């Protein structure tokens, strides 16, 4: 009759139907949730292993991020989830403990330094280029706050190894962010001949992140003084503030890892009053953490494995050895048993989300150089993403600190 060009059956979907991102995301959550529960019920393994498996499988069918660079939308989810976990982890770090038990700080510094040195020499020995070895060694200093916090809370772990794992993981994250920025800047400067950036970049990163972190910590403490953080609504408010701080961080080109970590540490150590909120800030945070594990699980490819699996495995082994050597050697002076020292070393072995973010940042800054590292680093991430949570769980069980079996 008139000029309506649509068919009379315009209300029917087009064929074939076009799925949007929401479909994939929700499907991932459902499948990962189911597999996580399956893994837990059948094998008593951490649920996060199930989430990571989903990512690994998706990638195996070539459905993952093909070029091993984090897509902006994935990067956002990773940043958000890690921010929550790092804030939570930071708020468990007591600086007073480091003062009353200086052997802990010694353990942390030695363990990180030895990791760096051991990984560097192993890689050069196995024929890697010195600059690649240096960069990978700096990344290898990182630990996994995501795995530590998730496995600890999933099994309601408590005790010396759990507490120390959380503390040392936080410190490792801090060292790794600064060390990698410094190393990358320095390597770049050697290459390009501009030295100012090599020094100035880590400084700006640390100082700027500290300022944003202080702002976040201060506003959270203001809210906490008036509202009860255990209440669902206040927890959401807290979540919102962390996300807000994160967007400021991105705008100012600061570290999305340092800001939430430092904010947590500042909050915990600025007031003696205990801070209590629902873990991972309730359900919203839980969904983000699930996505984080799926995404980190998916960051691997056959190409990357081909290029770096051998070296990646060597890094994993040497790193574990270095950590255990120090945690066992300093077990007695720092006040734990030999057995607990072994468990602590193993509990520090995962590396995942943080290394991924560091790599993504590197890819943004120096893409060609990053490409040389992806083989080794992504192989290590892919393996530890699956084994790491199981290792942490085994370590906690070995010293009888898990409360759910």
């Amino acid at each position: 009759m008139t000029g309506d060009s649509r068919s009379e059956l315009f209300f029917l979907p087009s064929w074939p139907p076009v799925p949007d991102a929401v479909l994939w995301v929700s499907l991932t959550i459902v499948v990962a949730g189911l597999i996580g529960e399956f893994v837990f019920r059948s094998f008593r393994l951490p649920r996060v292993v199930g989430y990571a498996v989903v990512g690994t499988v998706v990638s195996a069918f070539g459905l993952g991020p093909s070029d091993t660079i984090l897509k902006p939308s994935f990067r956002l989810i990773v940043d958000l989830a890690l921010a929550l976990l790092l804030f939570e982890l930071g708020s468990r770090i007591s600086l007073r403990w480091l003062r009353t038990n200086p052997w802990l700080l010694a353990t942390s510094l030695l363990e990180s330094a030895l990791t760096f040195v051991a990984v560097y020499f192993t890689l050069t020995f196995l024929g890697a280029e010195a600059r690649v070895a240096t960069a990978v060694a700096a990344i290898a200093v990182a630990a996994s706050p995501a795995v530590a916090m998730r496995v600890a809370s999933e099994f309601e772990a408590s005790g010396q190894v759990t507490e120390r794992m959380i503390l040392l993981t936080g410190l490792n994250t801090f060292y790794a962010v600064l060390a990698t920025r410094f190393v990358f800047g320095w390597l770049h400067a050697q290459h390009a001949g501009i030295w100012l950036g090599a020094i100035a970049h880590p400084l700006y990163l640390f100082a700027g992140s500290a300022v944003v972190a202080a702002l976040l910590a201060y506003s959270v403490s203001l809210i906490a003084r008036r509202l009860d953080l255990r209440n669902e609504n206040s927890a959401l408010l807290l979540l919102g503030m962390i996300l807000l701080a994160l967007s400021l961080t991105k705008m100012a080109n600061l570290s999305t890892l340092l800001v939430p970590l430092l904010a947590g540490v500042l909050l915990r150590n600025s007031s003696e009053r205990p801070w209590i909120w629902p873990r991972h800030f309730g359900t919203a945070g839980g969904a983000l953490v699930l996505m984080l594990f799926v995404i980190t699980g998916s960051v691997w490819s056959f190409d990357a494995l081909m290029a770096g699996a051998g070296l990646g495995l060597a890094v994993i082994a040497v790193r574990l050895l270095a950590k255990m050597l120090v945690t066992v050697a300093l077990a007695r002076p720092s006040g734990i048993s030999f057995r607990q020292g072994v468990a602590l070393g193993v509990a520090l072995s995962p590396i995942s989300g943080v290394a991924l973010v560091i790599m993504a940042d590197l890819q943004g800054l120096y893409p060609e150089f990053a490409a040389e590292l992806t083989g080794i680093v992504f192989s290590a991430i892919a393996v530890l993403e699956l084994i790491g949570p199981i290792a942490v769980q085994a370590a906690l069980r070995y010293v009888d600190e898990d409360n759910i079996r």
Partner: protein
Amino acid sequence: MPLEPFADSRALTLGVELELQIVNTHDFDLAHGAPDLLRLVGRRKLPGEVKPEMTNSMIELSTGVCTDYTGALSQLSEIRDVLVECASKLNIGLSGGGTHPFQHWSDRRIFDTPRFNMLSELYGYLSKQFTIFGQHVHVGCPGPDAALVLLHGLSRFIPHFIALSASSPFVQGTDTGFHSARLNSVFAFPLSGRAPFTLTWEEFGRFFDKMTRTGVVQSMKDFYWDIRPKPEFGTIEVRVLDTPLTIEKAAALAAYIQCVARWLTFEQPFRPAEDDYLVYTFNRFQACRFGFDGTFVDPQTGEHRTIREDIAATLAEIEHHAIELGAEDACRRVRDDIGALGNDATWIRQTYEHEHLLAEVVRQQCLRWSR
């Protein structure tokens, strides 16, 4: 096992045992820190002893034999300082208090020894609910018969000890309305309550043999009485006190018991009688529920007064003995408590009123314990 012989001990000497809470320092819930803490403390030299208790979140410290308040206080502070130092290396907190205000009993773990595992098997959830923290005071006795006379004499003063030490108003996150809710957990045990009225060791031995023949008990340890003889040490053991929030109060309470015991021994103001126990559970309940404001029924005269008034009257009676024992400071503390200060249960309630967060209350308890 027959009743063991009553060991020798110097009359009116003191020994103090305190069960302590081990808490974490981020949300101040109970933590399974006992094995770690014991390992560190084991490397140090102490005047008394530090031992595991029923669950991994408790620890028990005990002094050696003390002659007076000053001795008890100095031993307690020496042990306390070492414990606090070791705990700070492990980032755990130590606290007094008869109950942990918000722990969940199902989260508790039994300390791995044969006896604790046996008890846990026998009592089931009661043993985990038994995560309660008491102070025990041993008083030396010149002989077994004197011990039993003193035991039944001190029974009249049980409400005093309860009201003065009470520090367990909260259980599982809720204000119970009691000053000492801890004792309600003790009542659940089949062999709790009071010792049988026997005034000679021979008579007591007959009771003990009859009980062991029934197979219900094997040793004195199986009786959870408010006061029980401890033949191994040659003492009687007062067990109704909640662990106070400070060692100063713990020492003062021990000294108060010592003064009352000296008064009873030297002046024999009452002759213990079975009928004294007619009002026993009533008085005991009043002390648990209402603290110093509870009603005290005089077992001899049937007169009603508050527990506060009866403590004040007792303080006047024992003044001379307090001077003899060097316990004037201790009695002054007791007087302050029944006056404006109130007991620890009152302090805990007031602190919660102000802070609205039980974790913060526990944190402040840890502070009070450590200085």
